[in-house]
């Protein structure tokens, strides 16, 4: 859900999406406008609490007069624009992008992607059995969270969340380039040697499950992770006076992970190590 703060009233722009006239406040992206108009445009690297990096390119749409397709998530709407979201050209790019992604990384824990693969008739297998893929082992070097870059689509969200957009810790970065680019800490060492403060904000924004709670990772490995059996309860963090909202995910009476509502105007889904990971004491029963 996108929360648009009600600041000074903004001018309304008029333009067209798929032939229909729409109005959107100045500063909205094409994606915002599409969503308000009830149009479905797939997105992966766009995040509701971050400035989009427009790296994945699954949200591309056609804008009249533009030489190439444009990313709906970050292109600002302009008055008089003619946007087409569902042309053969846009669908073709989305399909190929999905194929390229699905053939190179493990999307099994990426929500919604299975549906898009079907909708766009993507066939990731057609690049053959020898197609290069990101071949990484999960990095388990601390008790709090696991980095499984086999699932990483390089959306840059974790880097932005750890860096100047939220956490200001700058523990992680994109290193290398091209197909060899990866998310890593300095000198590609273990997380424990890095600047990481274990706020878990990177996990909060990761769209693919490449970053996950150790608890979730272990349960998935053991085959006991069952989202349908989980309940979410939103409460207030008890550690300090800031009053961050926590959503406790509970399965079989155990807290299995903690997230935070993105529409909280103070924290926008961000927490600190205590709120995010300090739940063990709640369930110590002896």
């Amino acid at each position, binding site marked *: 859900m996108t929360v648009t703060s009600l600041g000074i009233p903004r001018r309304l722009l008029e333009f067209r999406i798929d032939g229909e006239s729409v109005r959107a406040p100045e500063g909205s992206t094409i994606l915002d406008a599409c969503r308000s108009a009830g149009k479905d445009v797939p997105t992966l690297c766009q995040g509701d609490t971050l400035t989009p990096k427009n790296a994945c390119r699954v949200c591309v749409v056609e804008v009249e007069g533009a030489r190439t397709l444009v990313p709906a998530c970050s292109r600002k709407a302009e008055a008089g624009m003619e946007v087409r979201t569902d042309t053969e050209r846009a669908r073709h790019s989305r399909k190929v992008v999905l194929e390229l992604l699905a053939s190179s990384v493990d999307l099994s824990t990426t929500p919604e992607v299975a549906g898009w693969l079907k909708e766009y008739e993507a066939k990731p297998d057609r690049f053959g059995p020898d197609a290069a893929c990101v071949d990484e082992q999960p990095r388990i070097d601390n008790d709090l969270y696991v980095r499984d870059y086999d699932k990483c689509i390089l959306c840059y969200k974790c880097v932005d969340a750890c860096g100047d957009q939220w956490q200001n810790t*700058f523990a992680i970065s994109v290193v290398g380039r091209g197909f060899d680019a990866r998310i890593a*800490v*300095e000198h590609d060492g273990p997380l424990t040697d*890095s600047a990481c403060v274990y706020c878990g904000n990177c996990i909060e924004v990761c769209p693919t499950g490449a970053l996950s709670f150790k608890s979730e990772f272990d349960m998935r490995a053991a085959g006991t992770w069952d989202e349908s059996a989980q309940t979410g309860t939103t409460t207030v963090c008890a550690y300090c006076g800031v009053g961050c909202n926590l959503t406790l995910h509970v399965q079989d009476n155990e807290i299995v992970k903690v997230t935070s509502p993105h529409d909280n105007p103070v924290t926008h889904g961000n927490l600190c190590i205590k709120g995010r990971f300090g739940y063990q004491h709640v369930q110590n029963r002896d």
Partner: protein
Amino acid sequence: MDLHFGDSKPTDEEQAAIDTLLGPPESSWEGADRSDADLRWARGGRAARDRRDLLLPGLHAVHDRIGWISEGALDYLCRRLTVPPAEAYGVATFYAMFSVKPRPATVLHVCTDLACAAAGASELCAEVEARLGPGSGVSVERSPCLGLCERAPAALAVKAGDPVRTAVSAPTTVERAVLAASSPDSAPEEPAAALAVPQAGDPSLTLLGRVGVVDPASLDDYRAHGGYTALRQAFAIGPAGVIREVTDAGLVGRGGAAFPTGRKWQATASQPDHPHYLVCNADESEPGTFKDRVVMEGDPYSLVEAMTIAAYAVGAHKGYLYLRGEYPRALRRMEHAIGQARARGLLGDDVLGQGYAFDIEIRRGAGAYICGEETALFNSIEGYRGEPRSKPPFPVEKGLFGKPTAENNVETLVNVLPILTMGAPAYAAIGTGTSTGPKLFCVSGSVDRPGIYELPFGATLGELLELAGVRERLRAVLLGGAAGGFVRPDELDIPLTFEGTRAAGTTLGSGVVLAFDDTVPLPRLLLRIAEFFRDESCGQCVPCRVGTVRQEEALHRIVERTGADAAADITLLREVGRAMKDASICGLGQTAWNAVESAIDRLGAYE
């Protein structure tokens, strides 16, 4: 920002290399452990943060001295600049010329790109590797185009130390390459820049007229040959006058995009936000391109003068010259020329006594084709990974350091000199109605006289190849470099203009003309092009990062196949290529399939 640093310490050498660049730390806080005296006193912390743009020069300083960048050196540099180590590591690993793993002090870059490949670079490289095996103290690296295509095959030796030594060997042989690597100091001098200009001395040359005629080290000689008359003219007519002349002359950018220069300058000049910057893109890394190198080596003051005029027109007081890391001689010549110009009041606070302040800083690239993309270049200068930014906003509005910036390549800028000296109408009379002026072409491959040629727009491809002495049994011509397209030997009447090449369904690009005779195996060449793009993709967007890999894989599969056997993979190539062209963020991904597509469609490469 609360930075965390590990325990690794720099060696004395590493620290010295960094301190030479940045000066000694002002307090023990900056870059070192805290002492009791200034435990709570972060003097200069904010000031240091503003120096992030010294990250790339800092990495160069360490690399030049040591040959690789250790953890301790990187951490020390980060402390000095208050840059998070993870980000600096991301930057260091972005560039092909840097190593973050120990490696020998001497690296021999052997070009295996198009012109060199056609001149037998693979065998050469294999033999050099055999001769300089482990224990030789030399690391042999296969390199993309070194910008020496007129002298293919080419090699560049870099020996770390204080100072760093370089030796260019081209045309190279196994012996010469080994000699350059083992004792760069005693390697023979490079041939004069003018040898890359077969027309040198021809009085009708406009842009190359001084190459081989002036002494590139002498400012007086430059002035004796008409230097600085254009700048005087610029001061006489004022910034608006310069922009008017450039607009009326019809000058468009020579880097490939062909955007009207006057319009770009006008848009920059009129931005209310300040300061304004001028950036000269001298990072030509398009395989087959070497014209900027020859201009900088043969006539360096012309670029200094042209940059000064451009800066004056757009209201910039600071200019950056972003120069390819692989051009040691161009770097030396430009450093010298800028120093001389500064000493003589042609740069600095009061240029030519006109009360206008302008200075130029050189920034060396470190091996990344993508940094030729204007916004990637800004990121690189600013000390970030050389990843392109998405546009809009455009550089004229938010460019370098987020400020209005005019970015032009070397060839575009030097065209401003004749525009001002001969006047817009005379300049516009050269070439055709819509492609005005003279144009530089980099001709290499299967020709007798490879080099840069200057012709008025409108000459045909055949005329150009004639001049260069095209050899028998021409099989294909690659126009515009790896990002361009192939044409057939029966298409030599294509006029070399923007509109003419467009009408013929191809592109002029940056003016690369690579000729291949029928001894060159086309599928291997295409594979090399695909490999180039796969290597040079920044990795930011999916269509390019993965698409270039899938393109290379498909070409590998069909390298020995044709007809029906290749059909499925060609369909695949087309589909991936179309998505790369349509959905990539920047020009690299958007053009990575052009050459292959044209080889399939125009040359029937796999029929």
